[in-house]
């Protein structure tokens, strides 16, 4: 990679990648909680609508959706997104759907006894959700959220396909300009790895804090520690496999 491309495209590209990751993660988090909670709602119509959202976005390929947003959407509706926002929207809505499965599953794993204790103390549904169920479900959510965040980071590379100048885009430019691709792509792969590593460290700190919040300090019990992605328990791993694909309102 020539130093020109490195300074003018790659470094700004790193920043774009980080921005896209942060924005899509924020959107995905919002969607995950809203849809995930809606999927445990007592009214069937709310569950149905949110469940449909989940099934549709789980069935969609993020790349196809992104290209559709970038190219088909403007032709259909005569209105064009800034490419970066088309990317953020596509990633946020898709990964948010996956995240909703994490939220729903964790909420359901809060024991019925806790709900009953909340009823016995006359809390409203909203209070039970906010003060009892969500705080207890939160530590359960963090490890799978970490893995989803890494998936999202990897997904951001797709925005290069709709011409957002992220770091993958810069590597492509370098290949075209210099006819030499090895250094650019090796650098690129390691850059993603480093960002993933940093994100995992942050999420581990979040997890420790979440655990401490329910009086379980120290390392998680029965959880295998990988280099990066949080290794989940056998049941957790099976559940994670389902999050992005099958499963659903089983």
């Amino acid at each position: 990679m020539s130093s020109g491309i490195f300074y003018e495209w790659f470094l700004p590209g790193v920043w774009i990648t980080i921005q896209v990751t942060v924005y899509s993660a924020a959107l995905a988090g919002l969607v995950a909680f809203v849809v995930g909670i809606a999927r445990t709602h007592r009214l069937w119509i709310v569950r149905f609508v949110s469940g449909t959202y989940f099934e549709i976005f789980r069935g969609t390929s993020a790349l196809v959706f992104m290209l559709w947003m970038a190219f088909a959407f403007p032709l259909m509706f005569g209105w064009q997104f800034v490419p970066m926002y088309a990317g953020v929207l596509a990633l946020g809505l898709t990964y948010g759907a996956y995240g909703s499965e994490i939220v729903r599953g964790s909420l359901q794993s809060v024991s019925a006894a806790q709900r009953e204790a909340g009823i016995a103390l006359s809390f409203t549904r909203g209070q039970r959700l906010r003060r009892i169920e969500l705080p207890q479900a939160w530590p359960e959510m963090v490890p799978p959220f970490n893995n989803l965040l890494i998936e999202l980071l990897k997904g951001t590379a797709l925005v290069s396909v709709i011409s957002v100048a992220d770091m993958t885009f810069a590597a492509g430019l370098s290949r075209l300009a210099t006819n030499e691709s090895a250094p650019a792509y090796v650098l690129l792969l390691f850059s993603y790895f480093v960002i993933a590593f940093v994100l995992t460290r942050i999420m581990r700190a979040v997890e420790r804090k979440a655990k401490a919040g329910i009086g379980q300090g120290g390392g998680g019990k029965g959880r295998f520690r990988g280099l990066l992605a949080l290794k989940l328990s056998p049941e957790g791993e099976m559940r994670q496999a389902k999050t992005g694909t099958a499963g659903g309102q089983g």
Partner: protein
Amino acid sequence: MPSENTPSPAGTPAESTETRAAGAELIRFERVSKRFGDNVVLDNLEFSVDAGKHVTLIGPSGSGKTTILRLLMTLLKPDEGEIVVDGDHLFHERRGDKLVPAGERHVREVRKKIGMVFQQFNLFPNMRVLRNITEAPVHVLGMPKDEAEQRARELLDLVGLTEHMDKYPVQLSGGQQQRVAIARALAMRPQVLLLDEVTSALDPELVAGVLDVLRDIAHTTDITMLCVTHEMGFARDISDTVLMFNEGRVIESGSPEKMFNDPDNERTREFLSAVL
């Protein structure tokens, strides 16, 4: 462990509720039936409990004792019949001059008069001991935080756990957790306290501490208690009335002296000779 002479609970339960003539009817089951599938758990059940009384429900497991408590707490809905608490229907409310199925708000209002202690404690693991006790008074009753904490300290003193108030539930023994759960229920100043086999999940050596606390509350307050237990000694100690259940019906009731020493019903006699 709370010693025998724990300080008498300064202004503990039920003292805030308008004082009623002792003996007024507080809870009434009106022909309540409950089925799970084909299994009839309660069959046209009728009984009432007067304010300030301590009533113990005994009977073989599966006879519907716990179901009664869970219905009162609205954790279950009856298939037929109605429960009246302090003059209010629990599952219906008056709209105009008609009785309609109760809305969430009505149920909550009536339910505030009832507190419950569970077999498995069900403390909130995400809150420290003190907050377990203050959470509902602050957010349900709208009590100022200082006042709620002050009261929680008094209650922790009553159950002998003042020094544990900053711990999380997982850091306590089962017996300690159950005493916190008792304090948590009392913090809502309920008129009725439901005790659902509160010592069944405890190691034997921890049972006495919990029962001591409950005895203390029974003898020093005018709270109404409805209690399902297998601890016959405790039942004899605190009860005004003992109800014997079998197959969804009350087959015999009476004072503990009568029930434990000289029951009329054959089933009662069999049951007691098996457990005593």
